[in-house]
């Protein structure tokens, strides 16, 4: 009797959600970067604008960069009108996204607390709550007792180094499963005709007479009518090949998870002052993020002392975590802008569009930026919601200073 080969009894491989394509010679639109923003942009180009001759070029595998490394927090409680516009647009899209993509995203609106630990924190937080309300963003100011009602495991005792004096609360904020978000967008975009080319690193932009004509890649030259950059931490490197300098600095940003634990943490807690943000994933891991490593680096790896400080902060807020174990830590490369706001819009080269500078906070914006960036590419003009986030704001001085609401990292 012939022995059955290993695996012969396993079920067949499930149907693929999309097919990895071989690069063709030319496309109407090439999107550089197959993370969340690139995939969402591709989807809305096809869905909202009927542009389907589109390739998403990804140097690794789809959604394997920062999309696989973020802490999945979704919120729209930013201070300024410009930010409220685009982040709230994103949150509204999140609220219908599972139905839109017909795919489970594990989108959970469990709310976010942004803790205040000093009198100035309190003033700034109350101001931000009022600003949010004026912009139609749900926001409440909670005193320490109310904070504990929302999240019973937060230590609100007054005799700790950084006592909790209160918090802003956005009930509609939450988390989603990042992989599912990428897969949902990829599947939906593929069904509309978008192609995905993986293991295809863009090594140069081709520009002729001030207009982009294509991209050079590790898999050959690809002509393109328009090129949309969604390359996050590597945007400076790609843009430099077209002679474009950007006001970006690339830094490692670290995060970590604990082992699987019983559900203990019902919401999302962020604290600027003690430098940590924590939620609990559906599966049970505590998911924690820290601030960026100070020094510029393209290594997807950060320094241990950042993690150490982050853990100290987490234990200060959540004494119950004292016996939890760190299971895994990792880093991604984020592109930080001078005003902690993104750059989304036109570039100095015709047909080349910028989506960068999201720093530590790009995941939450995924649907909103996909929507607006697709509009920008399709119309060669920014959508009203991303018009304030132009590159030339650094010359005009019309900055969108979100260092407060961008939270821990900047």
């Amino acid at each position: 009797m012939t022995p059955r080969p290993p695996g012969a009894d396993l079920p067949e491989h499930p149907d693929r959600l999309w097919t990895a394509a071989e690069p063709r010679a030319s496309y109407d639109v090439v999107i550089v970067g197959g993370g969340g923003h690139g995939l969402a942009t591709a989807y809305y180009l096809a869905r909202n604008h009927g542009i389907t001759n589109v390739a998403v070029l990804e140097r690794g595998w789809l959604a394997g960069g920062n999309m696989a490394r973020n802490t999945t927090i979704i919120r729209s409680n930013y201070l300024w009108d410009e930010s409220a516009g685009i982040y709230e647009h994103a949150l509204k899209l999140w609220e219908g996204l599972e139905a839109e993509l017909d795919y489970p995203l594990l989108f959970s609106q469990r709310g976010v607390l942004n803790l205040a630990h000093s009198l100035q924190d309190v003033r700034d937080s109350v101001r931000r709550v009022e600003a949010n309300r004026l912009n139609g963003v749900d926001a409440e100011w909670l005193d320490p007792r109310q904070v504990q009602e929302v999240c019973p495991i937060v230590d609100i005792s007054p005799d700790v180094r950084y006592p909790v004096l209160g918090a802003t609360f956005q009930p509609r904020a939450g988390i989603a499963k990042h992989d599912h978000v990428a897969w949902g967008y990829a599947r939906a975009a593929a069904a509309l005709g978008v192609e995905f080319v993986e293991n295809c690193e863009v090594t140069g932009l081709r520009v002729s007479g001030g207009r982009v004509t294509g991209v050079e890649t590790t898999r050959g030259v690809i002509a393109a009518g328009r090129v949309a950059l969604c390359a996050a931490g590597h945007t400076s490197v790609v843009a430099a090949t077209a002679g474009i300098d950007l006001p970006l600095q690339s830094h490692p940003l670290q995060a970590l998870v604990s082992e699987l634990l019983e559900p203990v943490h019902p919401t999302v807690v962020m604290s600027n002052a003690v430098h940590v943000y924590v939620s609990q994933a559906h599966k049970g891991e505590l998911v924690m993020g820290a601030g960026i490593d100070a020094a510029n680096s393209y290594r997807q790896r950060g320094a241990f002392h950042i993690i150490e400080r982050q853990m100290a902060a987490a234990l200060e807020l959540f004494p119950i975590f004292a016996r939890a174990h760190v299971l895994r830590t990792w880093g991604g490369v984020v592109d930080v802008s001078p005003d902690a706001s993104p750059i989304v819009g036109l570039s100095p080269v015709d047909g080349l569009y910028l989506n960068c500078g999201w720093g530590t906070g790009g995941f939450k914006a995924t649907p909103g930026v996909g929507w607006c960036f697709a509009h920008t590419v399709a119309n060669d003009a920014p959508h009203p919601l991303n018009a304030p986030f132009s590159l030339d704001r650094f010359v005009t001085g019309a900055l969108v200073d979100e260092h407060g609401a961008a939270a821990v990292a900047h």
Partner: protein
Amino acid sequence: MLLIPCPWCGPREEAEFHYGGQAHVAYPDDPAALSDEEWARYLFFRDNPKGVFAERWSHSAGCRRWFNALRDTATNEIHAVYRVGEPRPVTS
């Protein structure tokens, strides 16, 4: 964590240092004469290479002196450190 060779104190852990960003960015000779574009470039634009980067560090928990380093941002390898005022070393 980086092991950074302070030119005054020798190799110390990164946690003893404070980062100062790009080195050799001179304050404009006549700031009032700059155009908006030139001022924006001075204020907001810094090099962001994937490769060798000349940057400033302060040994804030040691000798408290500033110095410059050439570090490869793709590998984190430090090629050289040199004192403020010295020219950028030539590396291969």
